[in-house]
């Protein structure tokens, strides 16, 4: 192998100019990549890892600009090339795969058309030849029946299949370098495992070099040879994956590793207890009264609940169905006769891939959806009223949602968001509300003075703290957490997990924790239920399920999780 590297990035600087000043997204990054090598670029959001990728492929849009440094591909300088020459390199010598396959492909065009457009960008091909090449490209990324699939539209594919199509397009012209920007982050863990294996094989087979950008140390460990750790536009540590992940030299790398629940003892505080310096949560007198346990009844019971989603058929459609002209609208059995029992203070993890029905089950448990069959009981009392239009009749169950951007009203001060429920249900008077809110903000580790701010003034992690305060201010006994840390960076995730661990023990909360992330669930939960296609395939204590999975689906799921190397 020639000693000269394929890609040599020296002192790369990319700035974004805005009215408020200059954002130094990439601030003096240098690295080299050999032919056939896979390099991992890891960092949290805002670290500049994606901008580094876009700078290399020459796709920095105004107000961003590559301000300086050098990017040499095979000895050829790319910085300062006119856009027409950069276009000639894009897709041909360097190509890119993006994070969300739902967004990258054009929903209006067939897969075949999109592949042909990418082909025609660098070659003159006839329609028949283009189709043949498209089919071959699909076959290469292991899409079954490529001859028919080539005429499909993106929406007819699953997320994993779409990502395969995107990879096929990236590989079309046998590029020397592929930049993969979080290509498996939006996918389920089992699909991620497949894509990881396939990508690894494909780049090895074609001799392509790859830069794998990710926030997830474990996926990087399973695909990359080298890793660069980025923070605030700079590379803080670089080296062989095994060295960096087992013997980190930089404190930031160490703190990233400490934040991972998979490396900690279950139930212990993460990242040396970061984010737990908060006041105790306020309690109301009512809590003591409701705490009286009715010993003979199981505490929280989900009994044979089922939920089917179906489009409401109109009068005409019903008529047509009667006459046999139309078929009934397609329906989805999201949850199919699931039963669970929780004891007081228990934390149950509900794990499954997308579409497994875990969120639907959580929403039925929380009294958001009415089950079609079965019922949910807390202390022997139903959570929802019966009748034609059932509604939630208890405040003792609350929910924390995944996306704090969507679940907080953008036009309401967060103090009002938090006090709205307690005031409406008479937990606190309007006069006491201000004090009560401030106590809760302190309890979730926020400055009590933030009560008068609006959601957009907070970061994602802070917003999730607000959402937690809002749910707990209702003084619930049971909290349903629907992927509360899924959209957060690992260090923020660790803080939120710590907060949940602390509040749970201080308030004696019963938790239903819904997640696709097996390591987070193991860390937080006593018991785990694995969901697949609307049913619970396996449940038991966390250690039982994780260490001795019985069901083949659970076994596959656990095997698919990428693991960090241990020293």
């Amino acid at each position, binding site marked *: 192998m020639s000693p000269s590297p394929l890609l040599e990035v020296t002192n790369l600087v990319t700035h974004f100019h805005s009215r408020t000043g200059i954002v130094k997204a990439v601030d003096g990054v240098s690295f080299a990549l050999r032919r056939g090598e896979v390099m991992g670029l890891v960092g949290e959001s805002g670290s500049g890892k994606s901008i580094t990728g876009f700078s290399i*492929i020459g*796709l920095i849009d*105004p107000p961003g600009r590559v301000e300086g440094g050098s990017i040499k591909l095979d000895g050829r300088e790319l910085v300062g090339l006119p856009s027409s020459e950069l*276009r*000639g*390199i*894009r*897709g*041909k010598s360097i*190509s*890119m795969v*993006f*994070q*969300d396959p739902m*967004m*990258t*492909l*054009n*929903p*209006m*065009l*067939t897969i075949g*058309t999109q592949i042909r*457009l*990418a082909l*025609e*960008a*660098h070659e003159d091909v006839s329609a028949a030849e283009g189709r043949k090449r498209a089919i071959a490209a699909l076959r290469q990324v292991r899409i079954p029946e490529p001859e028919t699939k080539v005429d499909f*539209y993106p*929406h*007819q594919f699953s997320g994993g299949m779409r990502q395969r199509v*995107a990879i096929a*397009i*990236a590989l*079309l*012209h046998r590029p020397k370098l592929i930049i993969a920007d979080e290509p498996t982050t939006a996918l389920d863990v089992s699909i991620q495992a497949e894509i990881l294996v396939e990508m690894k094989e494909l780049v090895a087979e074609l001799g392509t070099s790859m830069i794998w950008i990710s926030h997830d140390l474990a996926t990087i460990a399973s695909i990359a040879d080298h890793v660069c750790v980025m923070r605030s536009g700079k590379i803080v540590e670089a080296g062989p994956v095994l060295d960096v992940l087992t013997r980190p030299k930089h404190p930031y790398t160490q703190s990233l590793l400490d934040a991972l629940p998979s490396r900690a003892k279950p139930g212990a505080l993460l990242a040396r207890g970061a984010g737990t310096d908060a006041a105790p949560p306020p309690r109301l007198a009512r809590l003591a009264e409701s705490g009286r346990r009715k010993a003979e009844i199981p505490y929280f019971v989900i009994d044979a609940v089922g939920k089917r989603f179906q489009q409401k058929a*109109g009068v*005409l*459609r019903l008529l*047509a169905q009667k006459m046999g*002209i*139309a078929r009934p609208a*397609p329906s989805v059995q999201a949850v199919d006769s699931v039963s669970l029992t929780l004891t007081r203070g228990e934390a149950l993890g509900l794990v499954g891939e997308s579409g497994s029905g875990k969120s639907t089950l959580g929403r039925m448990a929380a009294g958001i959806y009415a089950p079609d069959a079965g019922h949910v009981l807390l202390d022997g009392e139903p959570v929802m009223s019966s009748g034609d239009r059932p509604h939630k009749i208890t405040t003792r169950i609350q929910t924390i949602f995944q996306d704090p951007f969507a679940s907080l009203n953008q036009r309401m001060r967060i103090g009002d968001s938090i006090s709205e429920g307690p005031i409406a249900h008479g937990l606190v008077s309007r006069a006491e509300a201000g004090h009560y809110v401030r106590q809760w903000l302190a309890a979730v580790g926020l400055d009590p003075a933030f009560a008068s701010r609006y959601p957009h003034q907070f970061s994602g992690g802070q917003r999730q703290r607000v959402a937690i305060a809002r749910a707990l201010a209702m003084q619930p006994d049971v909290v349903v957490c629907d992927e509360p840390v899924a959209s957060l960076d690992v260090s923020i995730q660790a803080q939120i997990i710590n907060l949940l661990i602390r509040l749970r023990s201080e308030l004696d909360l019963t938790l239903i924790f819904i997640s696709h992330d097996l390591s987070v669930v193991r860390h937080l939960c006593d018991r785990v239920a694995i969901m697949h296609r609307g049913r619970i395939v396996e449940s038991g204590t966390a250690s039982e399920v994780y260490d001795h999975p019985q069901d083949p689906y659970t076994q596959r799921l656990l095997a698919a999780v990428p693991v960090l190397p241990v020293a």
Partner: protein
Amino acid sequence: MLGHVTGRIAQALVVMLVMSMLVFVGVHAIGNPIDVLIGPDVSQDIRLETIARYGLDRPLYEQYFTFLGRILHGDFGRSFVFGMPVLDLILSRLPATLELTLSAVCGAALIGIPAGIYAGYRPDGFAAKIIMTVSILGFSVPTFWIGLVLIMTFAVELQWLPAGGRGDTVAVFGVEWSFLTLNGLSHLLLPALNLAFFKLALMTRLARAGTREAMLSDTVKFARAAGLSEWTVLRRHVLRLIAIPLVTVFGLEFASTLAFAVVTETIFSWPGIGKLIIDSITSLDRPVMVAYLMLVAFVFITINFLVDLAYVGLDPRLRKAGSR
């Protein structure tokens, strides 16, 4: 799909029925046409006889059902003023409005969409700023004023184009069209331009907003990362991504212009249905008003349906429900 179409047709029939009632009652509330039709100095006998002849002495619901019954036979009644069947009257005027509207809306789309896409593609460029300024003018300056300025400039001062009328027409399939003769085209140009101005602004701004959003999408980034030229990205990806709102507005504007091109037709003395309806309102010509408003409802329903079909043609995701 078939179920969908039959559902829409049933819906349309219900809408038309309700519309006919509203129009019928509404038109009766405006005033009594007899006062306009006959002079105040005629004798009471003749007055009563005229009322009876037009069936205006009978109760409203009876008049309505007679009217409905006639419609089912394709008879919309006779104009009080022109004394000819209303349907013939409207159909004789419709082609003029149709060609005016079509050329205005299509012209607006053909110029506005590319201009908007360009303005969205290079939002900070000098040309984009000019395009957006012109489009603000198109929004804010009243149509009648632009019409007058056009006449003043091109017809009076420069004397390049005629100020009004339809010019020479050619009959195709028994219908007279202006746009097939040079003289007719010269008559068509100014009113079409006048009518197109607002729509041009609308299409431009819509296309610009859509393009700005689409240019930031991952789809476009991915297409660029694959090395597609900017022209291909705009033509094959962006245009498809922004098509749905454009088609919607195109349909709505086409329908509303067809129905309410009144101002322009009046200024340019264009003998279309806009002028007809104004004349029939001033003379309280009930059958014409009723038939015209029914026609408008029909046009809106039809165009909305066509727009829905266009959605299905454009967006494969909407096909899924039907093909399953």
